[in-house]
């Protein structure tokens, strides 16, 4: 049950999108998010959606896979949709019942909000699917390194993130092991109400916590033994370099950004 979590799942490949510098991808994803939030109408969303489809096609990741990644947010999307639908402000009332009312503007807002959320997650998914966690943390470290001067712990954060990513599968494995061990001792994780089930998790969480502290201790020692002493004076096996493809990608994105702005200015929905 635990092994199908898709957070930070990387889909190895050698496509155009895969080969982009992680810094480019991070910055462009941020730009895409801005696009999603500034665009006000159907045309804008359609443009972004088309563009994402294009990126997905380029990255050679199957659409099925991307859609499967949307499943966890299905609840949030429908929740915001319903909330916006019934509680949205507006004047053109279509249907009314007590405090609940559906207005034309409300319907539009609800649909746009849902579309925004789906696009947002798809966009970030494209980033994490095509960028290895190591490249991602590397990119973040490099992007934030100018802020080191004012005391921002860029290297430490990147290190923490990559260690966390490294240990997620290990801890999942351990959770499964402990679950089995506790079940063998008669623990019941499946029956009872929510509170009872939450309580039943306790004998699972405590060994997991204790275990991860021990792991942290071991790992810290192993890192020290391998001459780790922070980010200063460290080199990289594969230093990040911007290439021509990064320039092309940036150009394409700027065009998209410009198109969205133009659509907004001229009020084309």
């Amino acid at each position, binding site marked *: 049950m635990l092994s199908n979590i898709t957070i930070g799942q990387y889909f190895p490949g050698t496509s155009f999108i895969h080969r982009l510098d992680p810094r480019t991808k991070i910055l462009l994803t941020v730009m895409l998010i801005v696009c999603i939030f500034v665009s006000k109408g159907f045309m804008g969303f359609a443009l972004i959606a088309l563009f994402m489809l294009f990126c997905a096609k380029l990255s050679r990741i199957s659409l099925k896979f991307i859609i499967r990644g949307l499943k966890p947010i299905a609840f949030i999307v429908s929740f915001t949709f319903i909330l916006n639908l019934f509680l949205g402000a507006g004047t053109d009332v279509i249907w009314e019942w007590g405090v609940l009312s559906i207005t034309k503007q409300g319907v539009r807002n609800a649909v746009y909000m849902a579309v925004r959320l789906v696009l947002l997650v798809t966009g970030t998914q494209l980033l994490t699917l095509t960028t290895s966690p190591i490249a991602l943390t590397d990119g973040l470290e490099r992007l934030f390194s100018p802020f080191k001067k004012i005391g921002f712990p860029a290297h430490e954060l990147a290190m923490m993130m990559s260690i966390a990513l490294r240990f997620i599968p290990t801890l999942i494995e351990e959770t499964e092991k402990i679950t089995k061990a506790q079940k063998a001792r008669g623990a019941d994780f499946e029956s009872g109400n929510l509170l009872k089930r939450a309580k039943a998790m306790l004998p699972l969480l405590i060994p997991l916590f204790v275990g991860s502290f021990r792991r942290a201790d071991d790992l810290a020692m*192993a890192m020290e033994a391998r001459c780790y002493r922070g980010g200063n004076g460290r080199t990289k096996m594969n230093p990040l370099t911007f290439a021509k493809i990064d320039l092309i990608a940036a150009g394409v994105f700027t065009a998209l950004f410009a198109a969205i702005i133009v659509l907004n200015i001229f009020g084309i929905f």
Partner: protein
Amino acid sequence: MSDREYVIKAENLSFRYEGAERYAVDHVNLEVEKGEFLAVLGRNGSGKSTLGKLFNALIEPTEGTLTVCGMECKTEDDAFAIRQKCGMVFQNPDNQLVATIVEEDVAFGPENLGIASEEIRRRVRWALETVGMLEYRKNAPHLLSGGQKQRVAIAGVIAMKPEIIVFDESTSMLDPIGREEVMRVAKQLNRENGVTVVWITHFMEEAAQADRIAVVHNGSIAMADTPKKIFSKGQALKAFGLETPDMSYLAQELRSAGIMISDEIITVEEMEVELCRYKSNT
């Protein structure tokens, strides 16, 4: 004595954990020769792992002196230099790999040393090739077997080009196949690359494969000699909470029953040869 080169030299080396009454390492005098395969044998809590940590400068001696490759650990920079010369492979294969990709993990040590990218790539390739893990270089560590993970950990150490590698019970969490793999790589490094190996263990069968065994008991070196000599002292070993290998024990029993075969037998094969020789003589 003078023509021998020692890479580790401990004189009255002692270490006491904070708040502990007893010394974990108690006035140890030990010399490790360059290119030697030394097994440090002792039961749980004997202080053998603490000794290993001292060699790697992970902890500082409370008393006495310890020289590793001619260096004493006085400052942080000394510790850094010593760790470069004396690498360490730990017990738990899961808890010593840092990166999410095998190759990146092997690069971790050299990256910390500030080596140029080009050279790191060369070293990573060489290290993975040496331990026979080159084909897994793009894999995620958690998908590997225990023995494979330990081999990656060894690659991570040798990529820093150390002169000594301390194996701190590196096989104790592995299955027999994994144990065999790790032992084979350690021996190969010792023989072909001239790396000095300090093999900390409580497995007799592993210690038996070393050039020399140092038996640790209550923080001090109780005996230090060749495996054959050590195992021939079955009674003494028992007092240190250690079991002699089955064949050594059998040899001693046979001798006490009047069958005078050699008392330096460790493996089944040696026993076979010796018994055949004995039979043809009588």
